[in-house]
């Protein structure tokens, strides 16, 4: 009887000890897994590459201010290329109005004084490249080019007031090197002006040449 009890006790002790060892082993394995995952973590890397979707540069040209003659215009343009076809553009430009024919012929008091003759504008436009292509100079040189349509809204400060201005036109871009481009633009700026008696929509045509830098 006693030997049977002793036997059971021995078996129980053995089982306990065995399971304890097994538990210790499994705990050890779990710890190993935490430190060394069997599946390698995948690193998502993005290509380390310069995006050149911005373009900025000065421009100069001629602006025909309705009734006030053709005058030099200078400005700055910034462009963001959204896709290869669509781009957004912001411009600020400065000019100064000349004399109207009336002022020159009648010899009467000038219609506008001092800073009222300053013509300043800004606008934000959406452009669409419609005829992308290549232009050739001689037989060895080729420049990438593009013809685009563009239009937008902005403000013109002229004759002492600010005027809501709609502008639209077209342009031609010639990419001279990887970083520099030449842009030739023709625009019409439309706004209402009441300097000459009645309020009327004026058409102010502008032709400019810009040199822009991609970055």
């Amino acid at each position, binding site marked *: 009887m006693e030997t049977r009890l002793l036997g059971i006790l021995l078996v129980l002790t053995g089982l306990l000890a065995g399971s304890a060892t097994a538990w210790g082993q499994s705990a050890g394995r779990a710890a190993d897994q935490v430190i060394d995952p069997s599946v390698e973590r995948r690193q998502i*890397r993005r290509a380390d590459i310069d*995006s050149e*979707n911005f373009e900025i540069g000065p421009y100069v040209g001629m602006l025909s201010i309705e009734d006030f003659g053709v005058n030099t215009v200078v400005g700055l343009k910034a462009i963001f290329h959204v896709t290869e076809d669509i781009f957004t553009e912001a411009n600020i430009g400065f000019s100064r109005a000349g004399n109207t024919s009336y002022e020159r012929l009648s010899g009467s008091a000038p219609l506008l004084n001092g800073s009222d003759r300053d013509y300043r504008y800004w606008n934000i436009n959406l452009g669409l490249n419609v005829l992308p292509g290549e232009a050739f100079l001689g037989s060895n040189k080729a420049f990438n080019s593009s013809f685009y349509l563009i239009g937008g809204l902005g403000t013109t400060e002229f004759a002492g007031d600010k005027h809501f201005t709609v502008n639209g036109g077209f342009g031609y871009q010639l990419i001279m090197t*990887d970083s520099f481009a030449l842009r030739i633009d023709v625009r019409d700026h439309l706004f209402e002006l009441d300097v000459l008696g009645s309020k009327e929509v004026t058409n102010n045509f502008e032709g400019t040449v810009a040199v822009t830098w991609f970055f």
Partner: protein
Amino acid sequence: MLFVASFSAHAGKQNQQVKVADPYVDMRTGPGRGYPIFHIARRGAELELLSRRTDWVQVRLVDGKEGWVDLQQMRRTLQDDGSNTKFNDGSMADYVDHRWEVGVMGGDFGGANVLTGYGSFAFTPNIAVELALSQLLGNVSNGHIIAVNLSHTFFSRSRISPFISLGVGELVVKPQTSLVQADNRRYDTAIAGLGVKAYLTRRLMFRAEYKDYFVFTDRDENEDVREWKLGFSVFY
């Protein structure tokens, strides 16, 4: 000295190399689908990434040939760890997660033309704070509005999502100089609005909104001005 150091550091920078996995990739003379294909790079060829313009990547081959490869084909090239090359660009997924937004809008403010530039920052996919600067150009007076709005966007994970906004601002009105000379008038205003945003392409989105301005005047009655605007924005 600093300049020289930074210059040499720049020159020493190694461009990333990727390997062509497709049977071949087309190399074009310019960054656009209209430019002619002048060369191909075969499977296994090493491409050095030089620059990127919209959906085109400028690459250089070992023999020095440089050309522009379509982004779709570049996505199937392999990096040195064997994974596909990833590029940062605007997508619907980026649109859903975007935080910053900058845009311009034009429209009508109680009969006057209005031009607005705004920037907004999203705290969560739904809630954003925005700062808007508007220029008003009317028949008899001009002016501007500076406003801060808090907006809540519904269904921000879908391509088209409506939003509502509440804000406060200051309205400054300046009579035109061809009329009587008068001082600028300033009014505080409370703004309630609703609108819709739609994802277009890359980083470009369309936005239309209608706003009601409660202008607090020093007269007996406050004014109520309605405004609608359309525009586009880019997001980051």
